[in-house]
Each structure stands twice: as C-alpha cells, then as structure tokens.
C-alpha cells in the first residue's frame, strides 16, 4: 500500500486562505439498486476515520430498483451533523435527475457528472467535472451485472482526488464495509485507484472545497439506530421476538436475527436462549408478544405506522390486562401508507393513546443510536416493572441512517424482572390477588404460568375484573381498578428517563424537542448563541412527562416545540401537560419528510420574533 498516495491531490497543495475546509456537503445522485450505497457509506466512513465529523442522509424511493436516490454527506469541523438544505459538491450519475441536480448545486460548488449525460452546462458560478464513470468501470469490470456497480466507485476515486480524502482510510472504510473480506476490497480499490489516477491526469481543480484530517471523531462510533436498538434489545435479554416486515423498521428485526446466534447461544446446552418469529401480520405479532410477555419472556416487536394502527386492539389489552411488552415504532410519514421512505414524528400522540377507551401508554424517545441501544435494554426493565406495553418511538432518520455517536454503554443496572411471585412466596402468603395494590405504587404482583402451586394461577382477561382477576361488572370494581391504573401511570412518570435539560441563564426562549431533531436544535442554539440570542433546551426522552417539563415551559417567555408532523402533536401533549402555560408554546413543526435543518429552525424562531 502506498504510504501517502494522494500528495498529488490538488486539495493537498498548501491551502491558501481561499479553501473551504471540512465544512460542506456532498450529494451523490444515482438510481437505487445500482449499488451506490457501498460507495456512499465508504466515503462517509473514510471521512469519519480522518477525524472529520460527518453525517450521511439517504433519500431513497419506495421501490427496489431504478428510481432516483440521493445520498448526502455533510462534513463539519464544528461537529454539526444535522441535515443541510444545500450541497456544494454534487455527483450526477442519474440522467433522469441530472438537470435538477445541476440547478440545485450551491454557488461556488462543484458539479461532477457522468460524461455521457448530455445537458446544458451554462452556470459560471460552479465548477464542472465530467467523468467517464461508465468507461472506466467497463474497462475494469467484465461481469456486466457489476459494471453499473463499479461506476459508483469511480466517483469515489474522483472525489478523493478532488477533496483530498486519504486512500488508506478509504481502504479501511471498505474493509469495514466488507467485514474484513480482502477480495472485494481489492477489486473496489482497483477502481478507486484507477479513477484517482485518471482524475490526476485529466482534471484540474477549480473549486475551493477540501477536507483535512482533524481529530474531532476520536472515541465516537458510526452506526444506524436500528442496529443499535437491536443490540440494545439483545443486551436487554430479549428472548422472544415476533415481527412483521415493514420499512423502515425491518432492519431492527434483521439486526436481532443476525446478532442473536452470535451472542445468545447457551454456552452449556448450545441451545438458543431466544425465539424469533416472523408473524403473519402485526395483529398476530403483538398477540404473540403479549402471550410471551405474560408467560415470562422478555418480549418485543418492531413496526411502523400502519402496524401501529393494526396493534391498537392488542395494545389496549396489554394495557388493561397489564402485560409487559416492548413495541418499537420506527416512524415513517403518515397518514395511511403515506411515504414509507420519508421520516416523520407523526405517531407520538397516536401511540400515547393507542387503543379505544381510556388507554394511555409509556413511551421512550431515543435521540440517537446511543440512546436506541440504551432504551433498547431499558424498555424491558420498565415493561416488566410496570407490567405494561412500553413503546419505543424511533424514526427513519435515526433508524436507517449512519449516525456519529458515543459508543454504547454496557447496561448500568441489573435486569429488573418486576414483581413476580414464586410458589414458595405464595405458600407463605397463602395465596395472592393479581390486581391488588399491595405496595401503593399501583402495580400488583403477578405469577408466571406453570408456577407450581394450587393457588398460583389466575385468569387473565380484557374484560372488567376485581383484584382477584375474577370477572366483575360491579361499578366499584371497575372504578377501583381504573384508579389503580392511573396510580400506576404516576409511578411510570417517575420511573421513565428524565428529559435532557439545558437551562441558559437569562434565556427567554425555550426549545423543546425529541428524537432525531436534536442535531438541528443543537446547531440552531449554537448559531443563535453566536448572534447573542440565548436559548434553553429540553429534549423529551419519555412519556408520560414529569414536573421538569412543566417547570421548563413556565421558566420561559416562549417555548418553541420542534417536531416533524402536520398537527403539532407534541405541542398538543405539552398543552395538556401544562395548561396554565399553554399560550407560551409556539408550534414549530415541519412535515417535509426530510430531517429538519438548522437553517429552517432558525428562520422559524427568528420569524416568530
């Protein structure tokens, strides 16, 4: 391997003030199914390995092959990883969108396009770089199937030359991508090197963008939230999973299915300590999960909007029969089938109240893959402690995009299996009453099916029951039980993860957000701070909300509620949580289907002034 092959890259000439370093976005426009993901992820990771903070956002269609796809990589020396609205470096490999990609290229930017694409190139505010991607690929690749694939590695090479991306980090990135298999790495590097050489020989750099090794990613990892959630569940001891495929949640179950055999085979018996079932639909998925949770397993499912709707009846049963279960909802754009490959936070109010009658649910709100892992295991402790379904609301952006984040933290607490009575205890107690609030926290003690004691059993049902789990239609029993469930919800309020709060002295403006909007909010606050505008922030990490949320709103003149949906669902929940401050809440919602940008948020906040 050549020690430093890219010294000749124009980007590596002594900079001069004009160069813009580590602070721009690259967008590659291709067709889905053409294999550009390898190219894009390799670019992303190579930059990451150069110590440059990056984020990658994949904008893909809801089909399998041939439709326009855009992958945007943001580099930011400041460490901002939110989506930006424009791109300076644009790679156009898809003729269908080349013109619009061309027009969208930011002033001063670079437009790199497959030479065979014929189009008017009349902008004088950007640099043009035609590249023979197809020709180079064809020359190197015999298998026709693989030709289009290799064409992607050509633009990787050209970008490396253009921006000064280090070859050894690219090789390391590909090594990571191909899980250490040398063969594919070599064949890809061959294309990359050839392309670098071609660029060196045929192109002259006229734009001003380049990257430079720094050390702002030390100690961080790069991972997607669905894989993180899957691992979190596995380290949380999940041992029963029933699920039904749906974008963008499928990779949660895939991650679980892939990692379980490696991590969870009983070392003595060699038997699996788990079972994963792909059910016939979402109703069955949650039905199985409740059955397993009831019988004592750590049980979960993963789905998205349409599945949440189909789980409404079983969610109500889980709430009322008080059965532990974990339900991951990786949110996509609704209503209805909506936009399966676009992000949204449109289920938060719906999941909170899912099910007819007086149901309400505990919800966890991870803000990045690090929290997907943490809430992945914590959800089971909460579900078994509270004996109720616990929802984890992630979204397509966290779930399917690569995020830079802290390395996962090994569970800090032992598993909490909740209130379960053994046969011995029942003997001592001379029986038990399943739904009696013996501890005053609203949570009864349960027994697991098979507990070998004549007084251990009880009859679980979704219809009205008394403390002994016997069918009852008496008003007193019904009211008594509902009061206990309300008390239990108060217990939950105290147990769920507290919000992340940053109160700034003298700030009139508060910002409340949750989930994947966090990076845009952080960037916004930093940029406003630079302008001397102080803001406080509260990131909600769970429902129900606690007193801190109430006080936060009370402590600020106006609080902007940042969320990605049409009806300002979180703003509604906050209004109900803190009615006396209702008028201080400013609906700040966006439902474009794209992750929100700091530019948008700043406009909304300044516009509200």
């Amino acid at each position, binding site marked *: 391997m050549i020690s430093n092959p890219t010294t000749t890259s124009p980007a590596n000439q002594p900079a001069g003030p004009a160069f813009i370093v580590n602070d721009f976005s690259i967008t590659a426009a291709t067709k889905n199914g053409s294999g550009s993901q390898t190219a894009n992820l390799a670019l992303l990771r190579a930059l990451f390995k150069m110590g440059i903070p990056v984020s990658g956002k994949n904008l893909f269609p809801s089909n399998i092959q041939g439709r326009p796809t855009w992958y945007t990589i943001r580099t930011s020396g400041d460490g901002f990883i939110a989506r930006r609205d424009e791109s300076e470096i644009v790679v156009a490999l898809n003729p269908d969108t080349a013109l619009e990609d061309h027009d969208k290229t930011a002033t001063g930017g670079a437009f790199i396009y497959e030479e065979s694409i014929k189009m008017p190139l009349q902008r004088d505010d950007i640099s043009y770089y035609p590249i023979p991607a197809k020709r180079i690929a064809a020359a190197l690749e015999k298998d026709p199937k693989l030709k289009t694939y290799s064409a992607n590695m050509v633009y990787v090479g050209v970008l490396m030359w253009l921006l000064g991306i280090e070859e050894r980090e690219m090789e390391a990135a590909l090594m990571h991508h191909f899980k250490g298999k040398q063969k594919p790495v070599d064949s890809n590097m061959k294309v990359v090197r050839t392309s670098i050489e071609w660029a060196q020989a045929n192109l002259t750099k006229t734009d001003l963008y380049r990257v430079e090794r720094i050390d702002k990613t030390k100690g961080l990892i790069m991972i997607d939230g669905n894989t993180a959630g899957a691992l979190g569940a596995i380290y949380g001891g999940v041992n029963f999973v029933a699920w039904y495929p749906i974008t963008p949640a499928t990779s949660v179950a895939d991650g679980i299915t892939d990692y379980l055999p490696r991590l969870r085979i009983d070392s003595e018996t060699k038997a699996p300590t788990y079972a994963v079932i792909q059910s016939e639909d979402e109703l069955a998925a949650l039905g199985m999960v409740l059955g397993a949770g009831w*019988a004592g397993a750590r049980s979960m499912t993963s789905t998205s909007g349409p599945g949440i709707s189909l789980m409404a009846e079983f969610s109500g049963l889980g709430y009322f029969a008080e059965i532990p279960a974990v339900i991951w909802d990786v949110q996509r754009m609704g209503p209805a089938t909506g936009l399966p490959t676009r992000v949204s936070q449109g289920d938060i109010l719906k999941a909170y109240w899912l099910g007819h009658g007086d149901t309400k649910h505990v919800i966890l709100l991870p803000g990045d893959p690090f929290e997907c892992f943490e809430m992945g295991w914590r959800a089971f402790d909460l579900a078994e402690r509270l004996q109720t379904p616990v929802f984890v609301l992630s979204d397509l952006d966290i779930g399917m995009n690569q995020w830079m984040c802290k390395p996962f933290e090994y569970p800090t607490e032992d598993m909490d299996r909740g209130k379960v009575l053994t046969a011995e205890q029942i003997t001592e107690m001379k029986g038990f009453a399943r739904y009696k609030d013996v501890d005053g926290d609203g949570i009864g003690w349960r027994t697991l099916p098979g507990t070998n004691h004549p007084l251990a059993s*009880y009859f679980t049902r979704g219809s009205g029951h008394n403390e002994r789990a016997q069918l009852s239609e008496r008003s007193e029993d019904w009211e008594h039980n509902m009061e206990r469930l309300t008390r239990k919800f108060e217990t939950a309020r105290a147990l769920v993860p507290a919000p992340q709060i940053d109160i700034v002295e003298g700030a009139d403006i508060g910002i409340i957000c949750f989930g994947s909007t966090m990076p845009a909010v952080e960037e916004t606050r930093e940029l406003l701070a630079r302008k001397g505008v102080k803001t406080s922030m509260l990131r909600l990490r769970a429902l129900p909300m606690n007193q801190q949320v109430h006080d936060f709103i009370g402590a600020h003149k106006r609080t902007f509620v940042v969320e990605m949906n049409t009806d300002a669902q979180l703003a509604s929940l906050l209004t109900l949580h803190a009615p006396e401050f209702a008028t201080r809440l400013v609906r700040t919602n966006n439902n474009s289907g794209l992750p929100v940008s700091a530019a948008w948020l700043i406009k909304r906040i300044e516009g509200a002034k």
Partner: protein
Amino acid sequence: MTQTISSGPSGIAQSMPLSGLTKKANINIIGLEKGDYKGGDSTLCNGCGHDSISAQIITACYELGIQPEALIKFSGIGCSSKSPAYFMSRSFGFNSLHGRMPSVAQGALMANHSLQGLGVSGDGDTGSIGIGQFMHLVRRNLRMVYIIENNGVYGLTKGQFSATSDIGQELKHAGKNELPPIDLCREAIIGGCGFVARSFAGDPKQVVPLIKAALRHRGTAVLDIISPCVTFNNKDDSTKSYAWGREHDERIHDIQFVPNASEIQVDYPAGEAREVELHDGSKIVLHKVDEAMHDPTDKHAAIRLLTEAHDKQEFVTGLLYVDPNRENLAEIHDLGEMPLAHIPNDKLRPSRESLQKLIAGMF
C-alpha cells in the same frame, strides 16, 4: 421451581396413569381428585353444549393425571371462549381477544414450551374473524390442543351467522344463510395439521378419548366439536342442533385411548384393532364400527371424506387425520429443555467484553 412441574416437548408422559387404575381409585395417578380439576360456576345457558365439553375436558385431564398448573387454558371471545373459566381453576388461563387466541397461545407456549396448551374457541372466533390466525397457527404446528366449540352461530352476540353456519339456516334478523360453511377440519388438514378430529358435544364416549389423544400429540391438535347452542341455534333443521346431531351423527369408528406402558388391552379383542402411534409412543386403537372404515393416516382419504360430507352438509365424527411426524414450532426453533421464560438473567445478557468487541468494529 417451575422446572419441576412438567417435562418439555414430550408432553407430560411421566405422569401417565397405569391402564385401568384411574377407573378404580377416586384419586388419579398424580394423587389429585376430580374436584381438583373443577372450575368456576358456569354462566352459560342451561343445556349449552359448551358446558358438556368443559366436563369432558375435566374428565380427560383428570384421567390422564395432568398437573393442572402445567396446563394453560386459552380462548378468544364468545360463549365458548368463556368456558375456560368453568374448568380447571388451578390452571392459568388467558381469555384473549376475539379471533386472536392463536397468536397469544403461540407467544405463551414458545415462552414456556414445557407447558401443555389447551385452547377453546368458537366457530365465529375461529372461522370468521379468526380464520387467518387459525391457518397460520396450524401451519406453524404449535404444540397445543385447539378445541372449536362449533354451534354454527354467534351465541354471545345473540344469534348471527358464523362462517360454519349451514346453507339455508335461518336466523331472526339475518334471514336465510346462503353462503357455504367453512369446514375447519378440512382447512386444518390442508394447512398441515397432524391431528384433526371431529365429534359431538353430546357424545362423551367419543370426545373424552379424542381429547386425551390430542393432549398427547406432538403439534397442533384440532378438535372441531359440534356443540349446540340451545338458545339461538337449536332448530331441528340445523346441523348443529342436538336433534339433528343424534340423527345424522355418522360415525366412522370409536376410539379408546391406550396409555403408554400398558400391555394388555383388556376389552379390545385383537384383530378388529388398528393402531396409530403418536409421537410420545402411546397408541390410538381404532375400532371399525361399519363398512365405512377410514384410514386416518391417509390424507387424501380424509380430505375426500370431508369434501363429500361437506357437499352433503353432513359431518363425520372421529379421528379424521393423524400425522405425528412433523416437527412442532418449538422443535423448529431448536428450543432446549429449559423454557425461555426460565432462562436466568446471566444467560440473557451477553458479556461486557462481547459488547466491547462489537463497538470496536464500529469506528
């Protein structure tokens, strides 16, 4: 502690009664009296077929010496689905949602496959809203006994047609049914079920041995038991009514369950007997009662028999189809002896080191 209560996939074979014994003593092989198998007072109508079936379930479990705590009762919603509250109070029970018993049972019995599952559903619960989950349950071959208390009507909602109602059957508001009934036994066979039987609630002599045999089956065992609704579906022109049943109940053979380890079959002279070996080694002995001898290992014959009966709107009772060879869901998933629900926490959470290794790969 729960490890001790049962015996994994091979069912509760250990606690099987010696032949004839249970008949004499008034305690069974595991030392329990019949009273230990009783349930709460029924709230069903006097004379409801479902109550007879509850009694027969009690008899079967008592005589087999099944540990009540080692059995889980499941049901959906309906009069039939209420009945698990009326037998075996010492067993755990899960009265789930309308049409969704199969999914709940799959979850519970995969979480603890050492327990015996016994589900009671109705024809509406299984044939109408629940046909999808039923088909997929059977396809997965979960080890459980699935009893359909089939009265061809919605009892609890006061008399509407179900998917098993007869063509021509009449009801107060709905008028005349013109849709062909779904034959749940045929569906089960085609879906891959390895134990399919049909009987009549008023015929304990046939029902009890069938339940016993079903409790021994390796996978899903479906029993479609015609169980007249005296209140909404007992016109004598209905195939589900007592009167009708008595007339048309067309036997193919009656069944005597012969438990393991019993050598002599006292009152069953050789020669007339035909044996089917179940997964746990116990045998079902079939007695030919008329010329319409039926071989329950012949899938084609079973389907044909049912198709003919279906077209004639008649039903045949007895053991229709048996195939003890297909793996059940727990076996397909290679579950070990220890139920998932009993695996200790330290085996559920991988080591700190394993996580460090994974993270190392994410830089």
